[in-house]
């Protein structure tokens, strides 16, 4: 019934290969290349939809499909197996759905770029890797995807490889991700051995879930394993301490930022924790760590978002912050809420990024037209674009409302559920809730700040370029409209019970129950609280969001001079925040530079002196020795004959006198 699951990752892989191998030479038209890329992902989306509805109607919710053996080593049997359950089905829809829209958008955005075919090949390869990550039925198949998305992220950040900053950002992303991958791998191996010592040699997710209890709730080994996995998640999902690569990743083209660094890849860590929820639930200490790290990241990234002027950087820090929310949810056991937020975030953040891309695209063309070198991404060069780009403005505004958690937009339902769980969950804490609420307020503030700076007020673009700013073509605006609609209504699948007046029911919770319910029941993870408390918190969080919006309106609409005064007064603080709290510099000081010096020592000290010294020394001794020895090569035949005679005498003498 689910035998053709392999088609889902297969289409993008084929698309990637076709565009990668033949795109440059044979496909002269951008429409052909873009069409192949987009259709490949759309094909996956259609297949995913089919299986989604099939799963919806099915009574059996977890399906493993084995396509053969990958390797057999001793006790370890690894299969090529895919796993379709409600969690992966939902992720499939998000990845392929948002992915198709972004592919379509890229046709317009990347128009006229030199490596057009290369871009689509990488983008399809990324979708393939992400689908492997999502569908992987055991940890190693997931690891293929896990590494694959990292690779594609590297390739796409470094898409403009002739720019040094892009190359550096790509390297940084790759290296930082490696640290996380190391944690993932160590966690996997530890899990494999400790479970194996209990007689269960497996890395299959379903079997891990079934046998996790053998390790013992709260035991040291479970805590260690889950912490290592969490380290992997912090790398991929840009959490403290490994978040620094994500803002730099904005060097890539904007569709990449939207797809990889907002909607899909960075949520891999959240997905992985949700996938192994049974394991994580057994380690309360790890869960607490996750919640604290998530809350800290949400707050910390939000502060940096205040002071950035590059529109994509604001969105990047907002992504880090929102991922913090998802980890908060995972940490307090609100798996459904975390996945819910992952989904709604994919909608509105992709929309925000694509909207910013639309603005950058228009700005870039206008500035190029006027032969100016102003920064097309600097919000201080924008302002008043709402009349020039009405569709982009409306969709961006809708997404800002959604991310700020305004009622009945998608972000409201998901963020609210997270905050409710942090407050009321048996694993929650009022402190996490407090930090989360402050971060939510800050989110509303800086998102509306970016909205106002970009689209409202007087236009601050250079007068020469001012009139050349135009709305983008339909391939760009259509995905914006679709995503904005999803950001508006997408939350309706997860209406909380207390405000469910029409009795629609929380569809998402019901759908994901086969994955999470067992864990939550076994480890008694639940949100306890009266309906009135929940409504009170809900109203509170809306008020918090409104406060943020109000402050932004007051500062950037009513009194445009105020931010300038503010930064002048607290110039030191502003500079620190603008420079991202000097975290990059701190990491340089603590890790990067010592590594560099150590490498330099190994090169100049060890390699040059010791290794080369030994090799050259042996050579030199040989040279000296032979320089002395060569004088026996006199050129006189009689000397050689003498040598022969002496040799014969010695040999004969040896045998005779022995």
């Amino acid at each position, binding site marked *: 019934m689910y035998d053709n699951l392999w088609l889902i990752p297969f289409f993008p892989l084929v698309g990637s290969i076709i565009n990668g191998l033949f795109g440059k030479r044979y496909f002269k038209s951008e429409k052909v290349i873009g069409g192949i890329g987009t259709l490949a992902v759309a094909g996956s989306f259609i297949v995913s939809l089919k299986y989604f509805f099939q799963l919806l109607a099915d009574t059996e919710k977890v399906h493993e499909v084995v396509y053969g053996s990958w390797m057999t080593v001793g006790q370890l049997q690894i299969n090529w197996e895919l796993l379709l359950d409600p969690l992966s089905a939902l992720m499939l829809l998000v990845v392929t759905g948002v992915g198709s829209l972004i592919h379509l958008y890229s046709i317009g955005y990347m128009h006229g770029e030199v490596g057009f075919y290369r871009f689509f090949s990488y983008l399809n390869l990324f979708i393939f890797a992400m689908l492997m990550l999502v569908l992987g039925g055991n940890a190693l198949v997931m690891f293929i995807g896990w590494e694959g998305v990292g690779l594609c992220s590297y390739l796409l950040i470094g898409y403009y490889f002739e720019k040094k900053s892009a190359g550096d950002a790509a390297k940084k992303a790759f290296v930082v991700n490696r640290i996380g991958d190391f944690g993932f791998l160590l966690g996997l191996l530890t899990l494999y051995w400790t479970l194996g010592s209990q007689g269960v040699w497996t890395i299959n997710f379903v079997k891990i879930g079934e046998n996790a209890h053998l390790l013992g709730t709260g035991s040291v080994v479970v805590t260690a394993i889950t912490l290592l996995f969490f380290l992997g998640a912090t790398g991929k999902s840009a959490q403290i301490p490994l978040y620094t690569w994500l803002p730099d990743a904005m060097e890539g083209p904007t569709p990449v930022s939207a797809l990889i660094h907002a909607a899909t890849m960075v949520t891999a860590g959240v997905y992985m924790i949700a996938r192994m929820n049974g394991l994580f639930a057994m380690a309360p200490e790890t869960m607490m760590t996750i919640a604290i790290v998530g809350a800290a990241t949400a707050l910390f990234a939000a502060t940096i978002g205040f002071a950035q002027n590059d529109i994509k950087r604001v969105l990047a820090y907002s992504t880090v912050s929102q991922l913090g929310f998802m980890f908060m949810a995972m940490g307090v056991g609100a798996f459904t809420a975390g996945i819910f937020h992952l989904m709604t975030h994919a909608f509105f953040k992709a929309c925000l990024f694509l909207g910013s891309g639309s603005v950058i695209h228009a700005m870039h063309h206008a500035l190029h037209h006027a032969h100016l070198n102003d920064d097309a991404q600097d919000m201080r060069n924008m302002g008043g674009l709402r009349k020039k780009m009405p569709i982009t403005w409306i969709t961006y505004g809708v997404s800002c409302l959604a991310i700020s958690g305004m009622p009945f937009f998608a972000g409201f339902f998901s963020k609210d559920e997270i905050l409710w769980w942090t407050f009321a969950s048996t694993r929650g804490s009022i402190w996490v809730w407090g930090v989360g609420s402050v971060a939510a307020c800050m989110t509303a503030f800086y998102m509306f700040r970016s909205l106002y700076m970009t689209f409202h007020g007087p236009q601050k673009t250079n007068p020469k370029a001012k009139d050349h700013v135009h709305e983008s073509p339909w391939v760009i605006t259509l995905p914006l409209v679709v995503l904005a609609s999803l950001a508006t209504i997408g939350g309706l699948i997860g209406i909380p019970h207390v405000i469910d007046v029409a009795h629609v029911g929380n569809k998402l919770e019901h759908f994901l129950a086969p994955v999470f319910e067992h864990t939550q029941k076994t480890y008694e993870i639940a949100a306890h609280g009266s309906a009135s408390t929940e409504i009170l918190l809900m109203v509170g969080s809306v008020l918090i969001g409104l406060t943020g919006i109000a402050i932004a309106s007051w500062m950037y609409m009513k009194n445009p001079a105020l931010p300038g005064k503010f930064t002048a007064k607290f110039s030191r603080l502003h500079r620190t925040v603008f420079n991202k709290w000097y975290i990059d510099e701190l990491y340089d000081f603590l890790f990067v530079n010592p590594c560099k010096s150590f490498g330099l020592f190994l090169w100049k000290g060890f390699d040059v002196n010791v290794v080369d010294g030994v090799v050259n020394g042996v050579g030199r001794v040989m040279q000296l020795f032979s320089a002395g020895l*060569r*004088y026996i*090569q*006199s*050129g*006189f*035949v*009689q000397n050689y*004959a*003498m040598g022969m*005679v002496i040799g014969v005498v010695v040999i004969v003498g040896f045998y005779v006198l022995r």
Partner: protein
Amino acid sequence: MITVHHYLVLGAILFSLGTFGVLTRKNAIVIFMCIELMLNAVNLTFISLSHYLGNMDGQIFVLFIMAVAAAEAAVGLALMIAFFRNRESISVDDFNLLKW
């Protein structure tokens, strides 16, 4: 009574003389002749042992050696002439090009 030992000692003496000549003389033709002397010393040894043991193998060997020595003499003398044309000398001290 002349025994096989006398022949062998004579052969050894002739061989040593030849070797000594090869090692000490400078004239290439003399060296060449000394090599012939060494060959013939060996021939003498072959013959005497062949006779002593009643085995014909040694005598056949001697015939071969004499044939090879004749060929060698032809090649060697040709080399001498080539040397002389080059150097106006047949002293081995002048043939020391292949050295350090």
